[in-house]
């Protein structure tokens, strides 16, 4: 039995001491005696998840797919290789927000605030305001103006909701068309969609940042196994 996993840092097992042994994909596969294929990437986007599923891999080689969708604000583009775009940590967006050009609702989604216990996002914002981080300044200097404009003027909540719905329908219909059973999860608590599993955790099941800790991964594995 082979199981296909994709997602972002949650599925990759960020903040675990030994992610390849402790993440939920490994626990599920050990329980079922299955072979694990985990393609997740920290900071990865739903666009990337769809590209992996529809273009880069052959899902028919797998007996099951477990896909964890992420925040719809993220995207990707090609520049010699596929590059991630994640508005969280982009200082000019804070300035635009303070100038009234980005609503608080959208800003919270940009910074991936899940709730008040999301210390990672709060810490990220504090460091941003101190001037100690600005992802776009360092990584996307030559594209900075476009992405600032894109997230300030072009993107909005409606766009993200529609884009997420397209991705949701695409994943579900693609797996159904290939007769591959799917568990579709998400970490986006802002979503209006009906996922098989929306990953929500108490603070004690999180690591220092926003990611699930070892017990958090065991909870995810148990929940998904229950649905399989």
């Amino acid at each position, binding site marked *: 039995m082979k199981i296909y996993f994709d997602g972002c840092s949650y599925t990759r097992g960020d903040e675990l001491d030994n992610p390849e042994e402790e993440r939920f994909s490994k626990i599920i596969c050990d329980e079922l005696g299955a072979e694990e294929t985990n393609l997740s990437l920290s900071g990865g986007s739903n666009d990337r998840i*769809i*590209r992996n599923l*529809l*273009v880069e891999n052959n899902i028919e080689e797998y007996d099951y797919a477990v896909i964890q969708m992420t925040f719809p604000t993220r995207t990707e*583009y*090609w*520049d010699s290789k596929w590059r991630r775009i994640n508005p969280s940590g982009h200082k000019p967006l804070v300035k635009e927000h303070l100038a009234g050009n980005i609503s608080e609702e959208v800003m919270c989604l940009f910074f991936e605030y899940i709730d008040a216990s999301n210390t990672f996002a709060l810490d990220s914002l504090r460091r941003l305001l101190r001037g100690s981080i600005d992802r776009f300044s360092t990584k996307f200097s*030559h*594209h900075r*103006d*476009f992405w600032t*404009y*894109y997230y300030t*003027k*072009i*993107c*909005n909540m*409606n*766009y993200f909701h*529609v884009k997420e*719905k*397209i991705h949701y*329908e*695409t994943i579900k*219909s*693609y797996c*159904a*068309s*290939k007769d591959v059973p799917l568990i579709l999860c998400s970490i986006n608590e802002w979503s209006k969609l009906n996922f098989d599993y929306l990953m929500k955790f108490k603070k004690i099941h999180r690591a220092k940042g926003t990611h699930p800790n070892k017990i958090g991964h065991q909870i995810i594995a148990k929940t998904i196994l229950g649905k399989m």
Partner: protein
Amino acid sequence: MKIYFDGGSWCYGSELLNRDESRFSKIVCNKLGAEEYNISQPGGSNAMMERHLLVDHKNIKEFDLVIIQMVYPDRNEYYDRYKKKFEANANFGGRTSLVTPREKIMVFDKPEAIDLTKKAWLDYYKYIYEDEYGLAYEEMHATAIKSYCKCNNVPLILGTMKKKKRFQSCKTKYDLYFNDPDNRVPRASNNHPNEEGHAIHAQMILNYIDGLSL
């Protein structure tokens, strides 16, 4: 019988004097005694067609056949917060879309004539968009459309505006190539098919439908 059509300006019937009567979707439907449902838009993108199908239509099963004419991969769309609707992201493609976007900008770059949002998209094509991106995302849109129709048991004819010979190595396979140089149809002054061109495209589709067991 009810047929769903989507596409860009060719499917819309741009430049036809009596678009609602002489575009290929109408001719096909008249021939089959079917009800025409055509939601194509000039300048429309593949992303728009995927959105129309997967999100805007709650029940695609009400249709007996879906016919989609996909367009050039460099087109895209965004949600205009002021107009409160999706808009094409400034169509810098079109006739020269087979050259790289950076070359296209040499032809179309007139910043003084366009608004700030269009300037941003111009920057997108100058600095960010690459054909690798466009081709991968075209395949994603095509595959999403195919699988959505397949799992809803609705027959699909997926066509394209791309020229077959230029893209023989592409993974994405289409049922019909409407813009193939070997089968060039008569055009109006701005390069859209004229009445005769639409009649030829309608016959192409009807011939293809004949081969399907609908």
